[in-house]
């Protein structure tokens, strides 16, 4: 099993991406299949004697790891296929080096998922951060990309320190850093809480949880599209994995009120992310903010699971966890698909700004229709996959008023309202994204030269789109697999026995069910029947004509809504979310230009002051730096003397 992960590292630097990337994809598929098939098997453990002597790395393969490995393998397979056709010469880092970084990145994510001691985990985690940093800065010639990369690296390290501290607490005085020892040690409540909070902070920084999200909309768009897809689709899920691992496995029995923290932060993140996504004008930033929203939804689910688990409602905790795992899987597919779609557009047009795109469905039908699948899925429309996890989460929320805690039982159901609002807003965002990029008339004349995706890229997109459809249509099978992981984490799993294979009815005490296949069949039957009837009975010709121009005689592509225009209602309604700069041209202006810049209040309110403070602190000790060797030697001498004095 671990061999399969190891195989993901091709050592060749040659320009054989046509072989390497498909090979990586193949290994990904194999990994996914093996991981999924072994879901019910017992836990496997191994000790690898690599790295430093006397410090072996432990690896462990349990159901939680298997679920996430399956996610990693299956989603990355599609991305790798796409990448095989995507990377070309002349864009920053050479493709060969990029291939190495890319596969190292994949391998390190795999290793994060199987690591079984803090040392191995941190090595893999840091490798993951570094390789992804190099991938983000692949086009290092552009200053914005360099600064985005720096911000990313900074946040990754702040997060990593928190995770390291959390592990430090978790070992509980035994000074054994294997996860087994952490499971065995019992912590007092304050220490356990501290460990949980540190882990939440560290993994939250990686996932983009509010208020640690600032790097995400900078770094994800900066990377080449397949890498953005991997980062949004897969890497963020390793943070989800980390939170689940620490909370439910290493700490073991989380207190119920811990759950309120990720729940509240998650809800805030979800609304924040989707509102910001709605006002973006760069298509990859839009998707990055949409990732922030989805992370919020995931953390909401985790919080709900912790609350339920803490008050002893384990079946509901299992259901909430199922929703989390399911949504992780869904988001891996949907978001990878969408990022790859933007990659195709970027390659075809060289344009990321929504205001210069449009009408691409005519030029790039494959990319457009396959992206449409992802768009509908992430908008939470049945019978695709995004709806299933949303449905599960909402169903779980419907029980939250039974939590035996006053006040909380009244607040929790309100979370459902926020989740519903975020989901509906996601629909808005996705209509904007698809409508402006692919529909309408081309906003620039250069778009006429856009070409559709090539063979490998098409294959990658098709793979992910099929994943979206299948995950949506076969929820019972998916949940059956995920149940193995929730069984391990909470000791409970939804009871699916004795139900038809096409029906999803995860709650026994409440009559709720959902059968996407039947739903799809009915819609398709109605559509086909209507089509046939209309065709047979009223067979009239179709005439093409110019669109109605209201008599003004000139229809210009610039009359369509721009990205700013489409986001205007959101900007108007959620005005307090944004820090906005706006130039309205005067009516007499002969060359009017409208400019609006929307930015994040948190950036100005929290980050810049902190950066400022650090800068000042750094300046205040800067006098130490004299630039003369003898002064530095004096420092060393004084240090040595002081140390000797203290030690002796």
């Amino acid at each position, binding site marked *: 099993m671990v061999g399969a992960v190891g195989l993901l590292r091709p050592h060749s630097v040659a320009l054989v991406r046509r072989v390497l990337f498909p090979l990586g994809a193949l290994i990904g598929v194999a990994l996914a299949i093996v991981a999924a098939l072994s879901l019910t098997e017992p836990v496997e453990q191994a000790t690898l004697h690599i790295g430093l002597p006397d410090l072996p790395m432990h690896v462990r393969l349990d159901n939680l790891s298997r679920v996430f490995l399956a996610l990693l393998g299956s989603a990355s397979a599609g991305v790798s296929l796409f990448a095989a056709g995507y990377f070309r010469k002349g864009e920053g880092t050479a493709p060969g080096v990029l291939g190495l970084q890319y596969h190292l990145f994949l391998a390190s994510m795999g290793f994060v998922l199987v690591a079984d001691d803090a040392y191995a985990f941190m090595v893999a985690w840091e490798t993951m951060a570094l390789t992804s940093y190099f991938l983000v800065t692949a086009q290092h010639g552009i200053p914005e990309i360099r600064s985005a990369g720096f911000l990313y690296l900074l946040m990754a390290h702040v997060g990593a320190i928190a995770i390291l501290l959390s592990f430090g607490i978790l070992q509980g005085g035994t000074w054994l850093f294997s996860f087994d020892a952490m499971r065995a040690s019992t912590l007092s409540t304050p220490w356990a809480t501290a460990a949980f909070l540190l882990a939440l902070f560290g993994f939250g920084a990686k996932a983009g949880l509010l208020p640690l999200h600032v790097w995400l909309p900078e770094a994800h768009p900066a990377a080449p599209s397949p890498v953005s897809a991997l980062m949004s689709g897969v890497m963020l899920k390793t943070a989800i994995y980390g939170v689940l691992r620490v909370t439910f496995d290493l700490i073991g029995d989380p207190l119920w009120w811990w759950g309120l923290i990720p729940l509240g932060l998650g809800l805030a993140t979800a609304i924040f992310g989707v509102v910001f996504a709605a006002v973006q004008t760069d298509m990859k930033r839009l998707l990055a903010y949409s990732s922030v929203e989805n992370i919020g939804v995931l953390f909401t689910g985790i919080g709900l699971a912790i609350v339920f688990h803490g008050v002893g409602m384990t079946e509901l905790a299992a259901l909430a966890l199922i929703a989390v795992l399911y949504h992780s899987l869904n988001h891996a597919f949907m978001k990878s698909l969408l990022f790859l779609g933007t990659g195709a557009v970027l390659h075809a047009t060289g344009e990321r700004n929504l205001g210069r795109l449009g009408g691409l469905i005519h030029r790039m039908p494959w990319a457009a229709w396959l992206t449409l699948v992802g768009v509908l899925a992430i908008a939470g429309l049945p019978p695709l996959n995004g709806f299933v996890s949303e449905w599960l989460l909402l169903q779980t929320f419907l029980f939250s008023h039974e939590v035996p805690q006053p006040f909380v039982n009244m607040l929790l159901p309100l979370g459902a309202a926020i989740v*519903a609002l975020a989901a509906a807003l996601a629909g808005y965002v996705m209509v904007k994204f698809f409508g402006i990029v692919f529909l309408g008339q081309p906003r620039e004349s250069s778009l006429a030269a856009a070409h559709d995706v090539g063979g490998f890229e098409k294959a990658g997109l098709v793979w992910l789109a099929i994943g979206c459809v299948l995950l949506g249509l076969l929820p019972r099978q998916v949940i059956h697999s995920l149940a193995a992981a929730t069984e391990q984490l909470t000791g409970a799993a939804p009871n699916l026995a004795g139900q038809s294979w096409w029906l999803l009815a995860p709650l026994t005490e409440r009559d709720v069910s959902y059968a996407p296949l039947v739903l799809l069949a009915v*819609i398709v039957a109605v559509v086909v029947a209507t089509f046939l009837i*209309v065709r047979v009975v009223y067979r009239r010709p179709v005439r093409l004509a110019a669109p109605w121009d209201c008599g003004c005689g000139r229809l210009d592509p610039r009359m369509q809504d721009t990205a700013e225009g489409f986001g205007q209602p959101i900007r108007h309604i959620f005005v307090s979310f944004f820090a906005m700069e706006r130039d309205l041209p005067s009516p007499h202006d002969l060359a009017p230009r409208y400019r609006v810049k929307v930015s994040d209040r948190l950036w100005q309110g929290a980050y810049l002051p902190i950066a400022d403070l650090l800068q000042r602190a750094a300046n205040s000790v800067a006098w130490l730096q004299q630039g003369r060797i003898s002064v530095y030697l004096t420092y060393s001498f004084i240090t040595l003397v002081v140390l000797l004095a203290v030690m002796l």
Partner: protein
Amino acid sequence: MSTVAWLTQFLEVLAALILAPLFLGWVNACRAWLQNRRAPSVLLPYHGIRKLFHKDAVIAASASPLFRVAPYVVFGAMVAAAAVIPSMGTGLPFRSAADAIALVGLLAIARVFMSLAAMDIGTAFGTLGARRDMMIGFLAEPALLMVIFVASLLSATTALPLIAERLVVQPLALYPSLAFTAVAFTMVLLAENARIPVDNPATHLELTMIHEAMLLEYSARHLALMEWAAALKLFNYACIGFALFVPWGASIGSTGIGAMALSLPALLVKLAVAGLWLALLETVSAKLRVFRAPEFMATAFMFAVLGLLVHLLLGA
């Protein structure tokens, strides 16, 4: 499932298809009466649809296949929604396939496709309509979900036919929470079906129209399907309202042609009253500016959430 059950399912969808334009015609006629105008025939929507089906279609040259597919998808989603809504009987075999959350999803499919189709041609009006419709939609959808949540907390299920069934079977009780959600639901209904005060179905005034702006480029059979789907949407919403707030009259549990036949008059009476009520609401209220519409919808959302809170406090 027995063949009788499937037959009732089929008949119910058929009834929805047939009654939907009639209901629309009735609302319009009532509105005309209340406004001292001579009312158009109640059957006018049928004539309109029939006429449109007999015309040659004209499509903009810049339309993509999405534009042609959308009317069918919208219509299909609406028909599928009609199949889950217990307009006459609750013993629908299709009810286990899609619960009320999926129903909201079905309505969202129709909205998303209609908006995408409107953006497809690339005219100013199309995108304007799409944007405004999505703006209404993103507030209406969670409000509707909250309304449904309150009802499902009362009845311990999210399947709409079961909600209606349990509300009827339970001893008659006043649910204060339902009072709030009823207000919210009425507001959502008005907004989602492009009625006054959010949109005016009777005009094509550029600055204010929402729904009609999206349909500007459609003609002939495509327009007929869109119009029919809109009528069906109004009918569906009315029947969701009946299921949540006045479920009496629908045949419960046992399915059979006889029971269905008995519940048809009940449905007609409810529709007649609802139509009159809608027309009255539209007559006494003034059209809001487009920017007031989000306030209106947000108020609906707040009311629905308030209903949830009241339910949690009072347990009813």
